[in-house]
């Protein structure tokens, strides 16, 4: 049973979500403010955190930044519909995906499932070559969902790992943003959706620059992204 922490100050709304999620066989805890929410999130008891961006005592993004210093637990954030800036700041601070508020509980559960599915270490169904990928200095282990770069461990969030994995599986080829979104977020891209771009730029920050100052992940305008093969 997956454990979910909801950090939101709206008592009635969270109790409704709790009611719904429990029936969907999740274990739900609720924190009504940022400081108790952060403390609970850092306890690494939970499989996923649902975080509201407007909290009484701190801004959701601040909590996220503090959480990301120590934990890669998947975070789904509640954003206000139409507030694009809020969403991009949230993704840049390390959220994995977002849900627009107001949303139906069904949509919320679909998002939760999509993320949890990606995060789970893949069972040993595939062959050995699918288990670990070596692209130049990059090593990806699909079973443990760990990545290393020049033998140095990369501290990737689950969505970032999934994205890098999708790019690595087709290294040298252009992978469309839509494919990336389906692979990493379990959903299709919607209009004005900058989620993938934000996640990719965050991965780029974690990888070093190429010797000739190019990034290892290339943007192919209008098409998608490409991981450089070789070396």
């Amino acid at each position, binding site marked *: 049973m997956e454990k979910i922490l909801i950090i939101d100050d709206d008592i009635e709304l969270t109790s*409704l979500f709790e009611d719904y999620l429990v029936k969907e066989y999740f274990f739900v805890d609720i924190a009504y403010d940022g400081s108790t929410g952060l403390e609970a999130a850092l306890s690494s008891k939970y499989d996923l955190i649902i975080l509201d961006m407007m909290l009484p005592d701190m801004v959701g993004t601040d909590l996220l930044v503090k959480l990301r210093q120590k934990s890669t637990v998947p975070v789904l954030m509640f954003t206000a519909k139409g507030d694009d800036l809020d969403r991009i700041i949230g993704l840049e601070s390390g959220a994995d995906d977002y849900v627009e508020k107001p949303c139906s509980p069904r949509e919320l559960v679909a998002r939760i499932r999509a993320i949890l599915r990606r995060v789970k270490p893949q069972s040993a169904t595939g062959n050995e070559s699918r288990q670990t990928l070596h692209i130049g200095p990059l090593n990806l282990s699909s079973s443990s969902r760990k990545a290393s770069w020049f033998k140095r461990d990369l501290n990737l969030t689950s969505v970032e790992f999934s994205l890098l994995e999708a790019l690595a599986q087709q290294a040298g080829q252009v992978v469309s943003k839509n494919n990336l979104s389906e692979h990493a977020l379990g959903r299709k891209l919607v209009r004005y959706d900058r989620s993938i771009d934000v996640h990719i730029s965050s991965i780029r920050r974690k990888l070093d620059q190429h010797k000739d100052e190019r990034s290892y992940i290339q943007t192919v305008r209008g098409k998608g992204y490409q991981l450089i093969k070789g070396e």
Partner: protein
Amino acid sequence: MGRLFWKFFLTFWLTLIIVAIVVGSGVRLRYLSSDNADVQQPLLDHHAEMFISPIASLAQHADSDSFKRYLAESQSFQGMKVYVLDVNDHDLLDRPLEAELIDEVKRQFQLYGNKGSVRQVTTPQNQQLFLFAVKLDKLLPGANKPPMPPPPFAGKHNGPPPPPPPLLLLITVGIVASLIFSGLLAWYFTKPIRHLRNAFTAVSQGKLDTRISGVMHNRKDELTELGLNFDDMVSKLQGLISSQQQLLYDVSHELRSPLARMHAAIGVAQQQPEKRQQTFERLENEIKRISDLIGELLMLSYVENTDNLHSGEKINFPELMNEIIEDTRYEADEKNINISFENSPSFLIVGFEELLRRAIENIIRNAIKFSPPTSSISVVMTETNEQLSLTISDQGPGVAEEYLPAIFNPFFRIDKQSNDSSGLGLAIALRAIEKHNGAITATNKTDGKGLIISINLPL
């Protein structure tokens, strides 16, 4: 270069050209007629002056016989000769004189007085004498003109006047100079107007941070003042618009919470049909919240759009207070709260009854909400000649000092989780009181047990 520039430019230029033509032709006419001896010359005729002065002083001091003798013996000097007239306009030496010449000399005396070649003196015998010098060459036989006195002012050199500069050159220089001058002047006048126009365009395109006093500060005139007024207007507009935008932002967030709960409640009802009844009640509550919020928003906008006090009505204030206290007593009784209020005899104030009622009612309701059960709220009204003050104090928890100024902001809530108010009550009260040119302040009781809200209204 706008149309105004060309208007200024043409006006200045035409004025300059007309002035130039008038002055120029005047000067030229004088110049052309300067062959006549009566044209004034800028310099004093020293010769005539030197010639006549000693004779005049002799006439003043010597007796008349010796003066006549001297006059008869005196030689002509540089072609000039002196005539002396008595009161009857007869020459002392009985020389013949034309009446025309005498008239001309008298005219010059009237114009210039004792100057140049004309003198009026009084002899020791108290006889009025009139002296003047004329040029001998004008008396030469065959000369058409009568002898004329030299002008009181005459050029240093008596040679022919220098030829005038060519007319074409004068006109060209004049036109070029006036063009440059009018262009500069028009540019100087229209520059601040151009600044203003650019600023207006920028503001109309939504750039409300436009300010122009910076570019106009080195002028000190009415246009600079206009620029300052413009800046003033734009910053007021900016404040107004940003507060409206903030309100809109807040309102959409306020509306989103009940909508999110409704959305979630419907999801739960779909998942668990047995909770349908509960969901309906919940939905009803949320709809009521939204509709209350919209009602309050409309009230806020009504308060802000009510005309200024001129269209206010006369209100019997103590009667209004009675009604408000009665209305709120019902809610107070539910929490066993006692409202103490001592009314005064009726007096009238000018204002908007609905706004005042809302303002005071909101404050009392707020006090009831934050009061503990079984406590009391006191409403005190004091009235002087100039103002009416009303204080409403409760026994609630008060407000932390740092939040005191913020409690009149829309949607400010100390307890963020409380959803049973629109968050607009005190904001409406503030605007309603400000509409009546009054003031509203919040303070904590000194012992920290309760909040005091005071309203001051001018009478």
